[in-house]
């Protein structure tokens, strides 16, 4: 098991190398340059070239790639932002935390809303408890999240003046953005949980439990749910990945200084160090979340644990 985890963590290395490569490649094919973006339209080309040179932007793309990897590995240095001249790490880290917080809240919210409703819908299949939330889930899942965000902003900030419309100074600031990004995945969770539970309820061992004389409560929660958890957890894991990236919308909408909107903004400036470091952080987070999902899997399902244990290295 530990070997498996270590192996997975080691896979972060090629992931990071790959991500850096992809970004450099992508940046390489996009037009524009950081100096022009920074110095503005009135700077003469000579100065632009000079600055680009100082920044190291004009190097060939492979050289940039290897330099970056070298600095990152040997000096633990993620570089200096082209745009702000600040240490990339110092700039990104607080924003990263904000986004992670937001995404985690999104995950928690979407799970807390979606999963119990999904279970209920499965258990009470064809009743009102099933149809109403299901229909609602269908509708919600079809609403673009920024529209949801706008509606929330309109209702809770403007009309009711209950929640702040921007920033991240307090917990209440997180409520609307977290809702914005979590409602669509909550709807997904509902549908997912429902079908997973329906599947699980049909299993033979559930019938065995009934044949033992177990009351329905135990049958559902102890037997069916635990077995239905696996796909649900994968879904939650994938959600988190999606939410980190999807937070961009909420970040834009609620003026939240997160990493997603930072990356998006800096693409305009071709601020490669920031984009790369930001993407690496997201990729690492994504990978770790997926690893956590697998570990939780193993925790829930002894068969999977055994499988990991068998993998020696």
């Amino acid at each position: 098991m530990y070997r498996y985890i270590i192996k997975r963590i080691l896979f972060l290395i090629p992931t990071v190398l790959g991500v850096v490569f992809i970004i450099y490649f992508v940046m390489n094919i996009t037009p524009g340059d950081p100096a022009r973006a920074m110095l503005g339209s009135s700077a003469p080309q000579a100065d632009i070239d000079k600055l680009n040179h100082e920044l190291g932007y004009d190097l060939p793309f492979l050289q940039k790639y290897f330099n970056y990897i070298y600095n990152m590995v040997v000096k633990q240095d993620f570089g200096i932002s082209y745009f702000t001249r600040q240490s990339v790490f110092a700039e990104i880290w607080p924003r990263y935390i904000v986004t992670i917080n937001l995404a985690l809240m999104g995950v928690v919210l979407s799970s807390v809303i979606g999963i119990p409703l999904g279970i209920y819908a499965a258990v009470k299949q064809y009743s009102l408890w099933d149809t109403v939330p299901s229909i609602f889930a269908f509708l919600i899942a079809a609403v673009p999240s920024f529209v949801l965000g706008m509606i929330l902003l309109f209702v809770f900030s403007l009309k009711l003046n209950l929640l702040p419309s921007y920033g991240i100074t307090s917990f209440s600031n997180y409520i609307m953005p977290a809702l914005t990004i979590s409602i669509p995945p909550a709807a997904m969770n509902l549908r997912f949980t429902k079908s997973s539970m329906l599947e699980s309820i049909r299993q033979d061992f559930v019938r065995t439990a009934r044949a033992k004389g177990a009351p329905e409560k135990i049958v559902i929660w102890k037997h069916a749910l635990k077995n239905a958890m696996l796909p649900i957890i994968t879904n939650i894991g994938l959600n988190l990945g999606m939410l980190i990236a999807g937070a961009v919308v909420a970040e834009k909408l609620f003026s939240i200084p997160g990493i997603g909107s930072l990356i998006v903004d800096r693409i305009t400036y071709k601020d490669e160090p920031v984009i790369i470091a930001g993407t690496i952080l997201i990729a690492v987070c994504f990978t770790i979340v997926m690893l956590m999902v697998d570990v939780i899997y193993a925790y829930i399902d002894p068969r999977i644990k055994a499988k990991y244990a068998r993998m020696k290295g």
Partner: protein
Amino acid sequence: MANYVGTSRREKVKNNKSTPLIETIGLRKLFKLNGGARLHAVDGINLKIYPGETVGVVGESGCGKSTLGRTILRLIEPTSGQILYNGSDITKISAGKMREMRKDLQIIFQDPYSSIDPRKSVIDIIAEYMFIHKVYKNKIDTYNRAAELMDLVGLARRYSSSYAHELDGGRRQRIGIARALSLNPKFIVCDEPVSALDVSIQAQILNLLMDLEEELGLTYMFVTHNLSVVKHISTKIMVMYLGKCVEMASSDELFQNPMHPYTKALLKAIPEPDISKRDEEFALIKGEVSSPINVKPGCRFAKRCDFCFDRCIQEDPNLTEVSYEHFVSCFLVEKNKVEK
């Protein structure tokens, strides 16, 4: 309809000992598992199948019966060893040549449900192999031949455009048989073709297989775990245990004179529909089949064997011919023989 007698079959076989149709020499298949462990599915099988014979392969679930069958047909690449077809090695021939060879070597699967593509109509399934090998120049001829095959296996033509899921297990298994016959093979591996069927249907299919054998001069390798079936259909029987052959003899000989402790136990374990033996105790083998992963040397059956002694744990017993055409792999038998 062919009119044959059990014994005549046996005679015929014995007379025909020239070259085996299929011969395996030290055939092994080790599956590499995640993490590097090796699963000994088939572990050094030497088997000769003569034309016209029906060789039954019995053994418990997971002992490597199917793997053996599939490896012989090179549906799974063997890890080592040779497969000779009519005396020539087919282990190393190219994929293209092997594809040609498949005309002669066919297989019928255990599960008539999963072995038929649910998206194809019956006639298409039967005709598929002929299309692959371009046996006929045009579609009509191919389909006509497919229809003939349906007649042959006793499948009404009105099912030709049905889909497998509309049919019951018995009819599906007939499709599988028709498909296997479509290229006029010489040799067919029947991988538990009746295990998934009800007794009444099972009988229909077994009858059909035996009729076809006679009519078309087929050679079967018949894989099963059902001893009564295997006795009924085979001329020669091989008993497998954890990838190894523990005993091999003609059908009658094996049932009359089983030698390996495992074979003996196996024969006794079959509950017979006969209440006269009602109060007889089952001959139990203690324990269960052990894991085929990373097996250690020594007799594979040693752990469950009542007669196990030191040597059994230390060395592999060899398959030795204890009497005419009766091979056993057991130190006990060897010892007895020596003593004799």
